[in-house]
């Protein structure tokens, strides 16, 4: 069962992972964007960790606070996108304290719908959605095996989706300005999304 403690652990773990991978994320963004995705995510997750220190009783409050914090500190494309993800993710868990695999799945779907509502990405636009979409599918397929297994499947699928962004020509975000030249590079947002799900698979069960 996922609860407010494990969510807290997840976000702290992700913050560390983002910090350790900030150079990588920025390098990927330098190739097809503006070289700030690592700094953006690192700044945002540091602020989230600081906000977590206040202590939260309920999962939805914690997740919405994380979302608000990301919206308020990240900026760029990833701020509203990850921010909206966590806001909707939290909203979907209102009233729940012990989160089962099914509920978690539904909330993940709600979060990703938020990303789509904000960013209007479609599959193969070469965005973080290319990691989220296969991840949700894999999660749903494995949900009967429990949260840990479903998240592990989701993380693995996200990694595949991330890798599959490499040959794509971007149609959304900054990378789209490069046209054909965006092909051959891995999308930074799909990379951070994969890190987020890998962190979840490690910390939630």
């Amino acid at each position: 069962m996922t609860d407010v403690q494990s969510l807290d652990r997840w976000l702290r773990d992700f913050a560390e992972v983002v910090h350790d991978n900030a150079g990588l994320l920025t390098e990927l963004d330098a190739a097809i964007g503006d070289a700030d995705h690592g700094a953006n995510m690192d700044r945002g997750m540091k602020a989230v960790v600081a906000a977590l220190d206040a202590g939260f009783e309920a999962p939805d409050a914690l997740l919405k606070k994380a979302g608000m914090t990301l919206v308020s500190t990240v900026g760029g494309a990833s701020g509203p996108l990850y921010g909206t993800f966590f806001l909707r993710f939290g909203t979907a868990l209102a009233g729940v304290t012990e989160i089962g695999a099914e509920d978690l799945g539904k909330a993940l779907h709600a979060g990703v719908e938020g990303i789509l509502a904000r960013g209007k990405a479609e599959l193969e636009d070469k965005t973080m959605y290319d990691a989220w979409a296969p991840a949700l599918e894999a999660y749903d397929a494995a949900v009967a095996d429990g949260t840990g297994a479903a998240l592990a499947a989701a993380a693995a699928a996200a990694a595949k989706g991330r890798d599959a962004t490499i040959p794509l020509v971007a149609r959304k975000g900054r990378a789209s300005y490069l046209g054909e030249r965006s092909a051959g590079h891995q999308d930074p947002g799909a990379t951070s999304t994969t890190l987020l799900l890998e962190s979840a698979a490690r910390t939630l069960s």
Partner: protein
Amino acid sequence: MSGMKKLINDPADVVSEALRGFEAAHGDRVRVDHENKIVYRKDAPRQGKVGLISGGGSGHEPMHGGLVGMGMLDAACAGEVFTSPVPDQMMAATKEVDGGAGVLHIVKNYTGDVMNFEMAAEMAAADAGTEVKSVVTNDDVAVQDSLYTAGRRGVGITVLLEKIAGAAAEQGRSLAEVADLAVKVNDNGRSMGMALTSCTVPAAGKPTFDLAENEMEVGIGIHGEPGRTRLPLAPAKEIAALLVDPVLTDLPYGDGDAVIAFVNGMGGTPLIELYLMYNEVKQLLDRAGITVARSLVGNYITSLEMAGCSVTLLKADDDLVGLWDAPVNTPGLRWGA
């Protein structure tokens, strides 16, 4: 430190420290909310005047903070370097500059900027009931437009738009009128840019891309990103044609049109080269039968220390030229005051 030669302290403090220096230098005309990283016109809000807000990532100076003042912006929200500001900033600025006549958001078309301004507008409407309109600039002809993509970038026209809309607001025009005018300016403006060098985002610590000594990037934006194509370095005459031709054909501009012509430096290119480029641009316009009603040459919408330039043309009628000539008093653009 390899690859980064900058007059900075901790890369994380670049924006906040620059804003302190900016306020110290221009405290006669602006005030700065350092917590929210917002530059305000010193006497904002102006009662009865439409408030003009812009903002975006830092690293484009003097835009936007340097364009705050009488006859131009009421507030500019500064994001981290090349990272759009956050909704909280635009919300705070919207509230602060609302003089009862509504507020116009001037947004450059980048996914991040658009989303953050959108969230701010939603929140401001829900919250204080301030009437907010938005105009999104997307003048960059390097990017093919399409329903299925993020569309064109907002670049040089943003500077001209902020001047012209600012003058209209100063005249007392209504929010609807100023917003319509802003849309008209964007619709009649086109730009194209090129880079001789990359630039280094302070937090990244090394150049965003590598460019050989005999190469240039054509079709760049303003975030140090590579452009649409990499070409062998060429004489100024050929570079001018590479920039002007796609601009002229896109709108299209033609024989008999009058324009405001803007040759902009990307930050690391000295004035002597920008004037030399303007000489080339002017000759191309002469040849096309296009009159230059007004011109602007200098570093106004930059990409940190990138060397290179962009050309913006704005088809101009008497109204636009009159508004262009109206007094303006900002740190970055000043005349008649």
